[in-house]
């Protein structure tokens, strides 16, 4: 069984962390993954940086630009990850835009993911129908789970369709926004979380975008199996560097006095 599915079966709320590979320094990738696992993170999204990240706000844009300047490429990332499974056992996903994956070759990319122990992919700009018609069999052949997004504007019919073709979890974008806006969750979001919860989907949901602290993490996980924190962690890396994940993670899991 894929590590993602196994993790989703655990009887706990899942904390998932996103960071941009090759940031702050090119060789930070594996060290960050190891320390996240050590400090209790359940799942990691490794960002494959892209020059034009359409769905990302300023924080992740800046980390992507820096990572690319640092020399991060698809090839370099796979090379960094080649021994990651010797030390890390939690599920690992790569989150990246479609063009770099297309250039690498979708089949070659999935094959390489399977080789190094990547369990799933999140590709925001690969539409569901294109995936279904052209790439599904490739992903399945290599045992790679593709994770789809839904938003507050996604129709019920489309959510049902996405649920029907998903094999791991559904990535619930918390509000209509790019990454990194953390205005907190009001009634609009909690109504949406409740609405999706009531749909009793086949796949568990993990909420992302705009989650930055204990409060928003607990709010989200009242309704969903887990939550993803991205920009807030990238900001932490920017100010504190890569050696201090422990404080950041513990602040998410316990209320701060």
């Amino acid at each position: 069984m894929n590590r993602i599915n196994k993790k989703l079966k655990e009887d706990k709320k899942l904390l998932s962390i996103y960071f941009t590979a090759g940031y702050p320094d090119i060789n930070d990738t594996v060290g960050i993954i190891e320390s996240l696992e050590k400090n209790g993170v359940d799942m990691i999204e490794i960002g494959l940086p892209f020059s034009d990240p359409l769905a990302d706000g300023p924080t992740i844009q800046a980390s992507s630009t820096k990572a690319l300047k640092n020399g991060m490429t698809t090839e370099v990332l796979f090379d960094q990850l080649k021994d990651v499974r010797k030390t890390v056992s939690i599920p690992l996903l790569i989150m990246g835009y479609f063009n770099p994956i297309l250039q690498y070759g979708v089949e070659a990319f999935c094959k390489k993911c399977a080789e190094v122990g990547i369990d799933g992919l999140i590709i925001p700009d690969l539409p569901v129908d294109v995936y279904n018609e052209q790439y599904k069999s490739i992903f399945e052949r290599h045992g790679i789970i593709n994770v789809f997004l839904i938003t507050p504007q996604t129709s019920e019919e489309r959510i049902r369709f996405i649920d029907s073709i998903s094999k791991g979890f559904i990535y619930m974008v918390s509000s209509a926004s790019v990454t990194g806006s953390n205005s907190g969750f009001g009634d609009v979001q909690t109504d949406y979380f409740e609405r999706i919860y009531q749909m009793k989907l086949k796949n568990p949901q993990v909420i992302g975008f705009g989650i930055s602290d204990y409060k928003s993490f607990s709010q989200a996980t009242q309704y969903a199996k887990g939550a993803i924190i991205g920009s807030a962690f990238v900001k932490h890396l920017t100010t504190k560097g890569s050696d201090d994940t422990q404080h950041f993670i513990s602040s998410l899991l316990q209320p701060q006095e």
Partner: protein
Amino acid sequence: MTYNINNKGYYGEFGGAYIPEMLYPNVEELRQNYLKVMAEPEFQEEFNALLKDYVGRPSPLYFAKRLSVKYNTKIYLKREDLNHTGAHKINNTVGQILMAKRLGKNRIIAETGAGQHGVATATVCALMGLECIVYMGEIDIARQAPNVARMKMLGATVIPALSGSRTLKDATNEAIRDWINNPVDTHYIIGSVVGPHPYPDMVARFQAIVSEEIQWQLKEKEGTTKPDYVVACVGGGSNAAGAFYHFLEDTEVKLIAVEAAGKGVHSGESAATSILGKEGIIHGSKTLLMQTPDGQITEPYSISAGLDYPGVGPMHAHLYKSGRAEFVAITDDDAMTAGLELCKMEGIIPAIESSHALAVFEHKKFKSSDIVVVSLSGRGDKDLETYIQHFGL
């Protein structure tokens, strides 16, 4: 082979809608409605009335006599420079603002490179009393200052795009992010035949008036609806799409797309996408784009802000790949020289974008009997500073 769009939103293998789920409801709403709305008689009536009385259409098809003598061929200029706001861009914004109103949107966003599309968008927003926000690269804000002032006078808010190369590509990214953040009340007026389906097709249809007019105007002047060549510059490709549209399937009419070679196609400072580009995804469309082997989009360069784009519309990618259109790359210097020549020989100051198309005559020999229609996509007022600097005037 067809050169038009198929029912799945592709031109050959190019096009589609590679968009994040956050954009799906808006793009899908547009996809489901655009053809229906455009076919409504009231829409047609309103669109045509505005094109006539507000834009000033039909734009003249002008026989450039002295230029024709010099190059020993029959040169006609399709005078989109004479449109209200000074370029072909307004044909599209008039169409899209009517579309936005039909879809119940009251907030308009746009990207702009040269500022022509920004001005054309701000103009129709003022006309309809709608809020207008224009994203423009910081570099372009500096090199197209008069257009920034125009947009502000027209009531638009101009927001600088500070990421990446700070030009058209980045302005487009920011506009798309704005649309993600405002998914309900906002319509995004894209300025060229780029972006996710249905944009390339919708914009091409709004610009198609250009070739429709060329047909009957040429009939009046030459007794035929068919030129031998149609020549247009290509940034994203909207003036070319408009000038080519009604000739796409008639291969007796040869199409020439002129791209910006910048300082030379292989100088590292160029925007000649068809030559330098590879298949990939940019701004929601599968097309040809300039990128690294690793799939990162590279920064283009052209002296002309309107051609300074690393991609090209999917229609043009298909015209290139299929060989239907000939693609020519013109350097900064050659374009500037051709622009100045039009000033001196015909008394017309062209936009630097259009000057690229005019440079085709130094690049390629035509027969004396050939009828060559050049899309004079815009006027040069916005470019005076660049002309002055380039020639030390």
